[in-house]
């Protein structure tokens, strides 16, 4: 009895030592990644939080002071920031809704088997692979107020308009112009994601539903949508986060135009053009908070449906 206990203890001890050694090996392999992560992500993140509580300015002679929450108080009264916040949220809501709807449509289309399907799937990668900065330039050329292909078609060919529109200069068409570029660029990603989700749904479920006399619409709402929810949630989260931090499209299309500033371009202006690192960090942190609010809302919505 005593020997077996001793043996077991010994074995446990050996196992413990081995586990410890294995853990040490694992940490050794992780070290480079941890150092890099700490260096370029964790430290800067904490630093940003800290800087947002100071009046740090790059290149300033005066030493930085701790100013508490005053940058955030200022934010709440900053008309430029509030307008940027409104525009960014509006942009996020519009693009995410459009991209999910369109992406779902495309995914359903491509879920069917047909000749040339893989060619179409390949074509989906074209908008995704082009750098946003470059594709925005391409769209700007199509939007050109005099020689753009859109005006050409609308005015000269179809006669729908009597005068060309300055799509990217006219305040009424500026936001839709940016939305279209983003939708074009990222809908394929959403569609591919949802397509992957669709292909996980067992075909037998549909057959069983058909046997039970369900219509196509019923099959869609009762089987497809519920089973696609995880993929939809992922697409929703990814797209919302990307839309809330949108920079490239607006920077390239509108430059420093104040009525078309998003949270990210505003933060960039404060950080880079003005070097007001304290206030700019507060704007950056605010972007973070806005994103957090959206995530909490999503989680709350999806959990309620679960229970």
């Amino acid at each position, binding site marked *: 009895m005593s020997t077996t206990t001793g043996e077991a203890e010994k074995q446990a001890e050996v196992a413990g030592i081995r586990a410890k050694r294995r853990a040490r090996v694992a940490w050794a392999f992780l070290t480079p990644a941890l150092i890099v*992560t700490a260096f370029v992500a964790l430290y800067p993140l904490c630093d940003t939080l800290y800087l947002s509580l100071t009046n740090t300015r790059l290149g300033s002679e005066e030493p930085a002071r701790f100013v508490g929450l005053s940058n955030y108080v200022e934010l709440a009264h900053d008309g430029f920031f509030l307008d940027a916040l409104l525009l960014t949220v509006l942009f996020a809501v519009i693009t995410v809704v459009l991209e999910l709807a369109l992406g779902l449509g495309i995914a359903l289309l491509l879920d069917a088997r047909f000749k040339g399907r893989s060619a179409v799937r390949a074509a989906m990668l074209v908008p995704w692979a082009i750098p946003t900065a470059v594709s925005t330039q391409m769209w700007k050329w199509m939007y050109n107020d005099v020689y753009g292909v859109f005006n050409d078609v609308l005015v000269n060919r179809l006669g729908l308009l009597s005068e060309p529109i300055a799509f990217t200069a006219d305040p009424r068409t500026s936001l839709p112009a940016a939305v279209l570029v983003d939708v074009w660029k990222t809908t394929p990603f959403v569609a591919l994601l949802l397509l992957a989700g669709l292909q996980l749904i067992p075909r037998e479920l549909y057959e069983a539903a058909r046997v039970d006399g369900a219509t196509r619409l019923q099959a869609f709402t009762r089987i497809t949508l519920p089973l696609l929810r995880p993929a939809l949630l992922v697409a929703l989260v990814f797209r919302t986060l990307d839309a809330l931090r949108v920079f490239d499209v607006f920077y390239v299309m509108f430059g420093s135009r104040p009525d078309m500033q998003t949270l990210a371009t505003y933060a*960039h202006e404060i950080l880079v053009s003005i070097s007001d690192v304290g206030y700019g960090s507060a704007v950056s942190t605010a972007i973070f908070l806005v994103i957090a609010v959206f995530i909490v809302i999503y989680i709350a919505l999806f959990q309620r449906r679960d229970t």
Partner: protein
Amino acid sequence: MKARGVARRAAFGMAVVFLVVYLVFPFGWALVSSFKTNAELFSLPARFWPEHPTLEHYRRVLANDDFLRAALNSVLVASSVTLVSLAIGALAAFALGRYRFRGRSLVLYVILSMTLFPQIAVLGALFQLVNALGLYNRLPALTLTYLVFTLPFTIWVLTGFLEAVPVEIEEAAYMDGASPLQLFAKIMLPLAAPGMVTTGLLSFIAAWNELLFALSFMQTPDKRTVTHAILSFSATTSSAFEVPWGQMMAASVLVTTPLVLLALVFQRRIIAGLTAGAVKG
């Protein structure tokens, strides 16, 4: 019944055709525009096909030293980021995929959340870091900072790959007296090769497409990457009356064609990588 089937198939076919046109039209239009003479570019009504196709815009773009330099810079930055993040990422993925230890899920959690946070959120702090390291207006600044978005993704996908390797293979290697390092280098790395190709491609494309950091950390024209250089085109090269749209489109085609080709050649891997990275999250 039959007529309905035909109509349905026709509608389906049209939807597919419309989809393809929608997806490739902007690139196609840039391509067509890049071969038009200035007279054709700036005439109304627009011509859908160049009547006198010309390579003039390409000739000018390729004679533009700043642009060539930018292309080289982008290649250097994107490849170095890819290599570094693959090397570091594979090591980390080996630890996370093959070992169970305390703190493992915390590490995974941190890495996952890194893929979600906005780059703009660390811009100010990174700028100070880059300055402190003396890397301002030096390409390695981009190699370093781009790891913010390439590394988490690489680790995440490669961990998934290495987790799937059967435990017997690992045990057999240890029986043969292999050290963890040998196990990693001789057995796990080859097994993870397909995953490395996928994540490598995605890292390369992400680095090639980046704008915010390139704009903020590089200054002089000889340090610009292609995304930044294309923006500066209209600001410095136009001495004529019109914005040089022809050259801009030619340059756009030049910097996107390699990516589009990569994406098409490796489409299966890329789609798998994109969806795997997301669905697991």
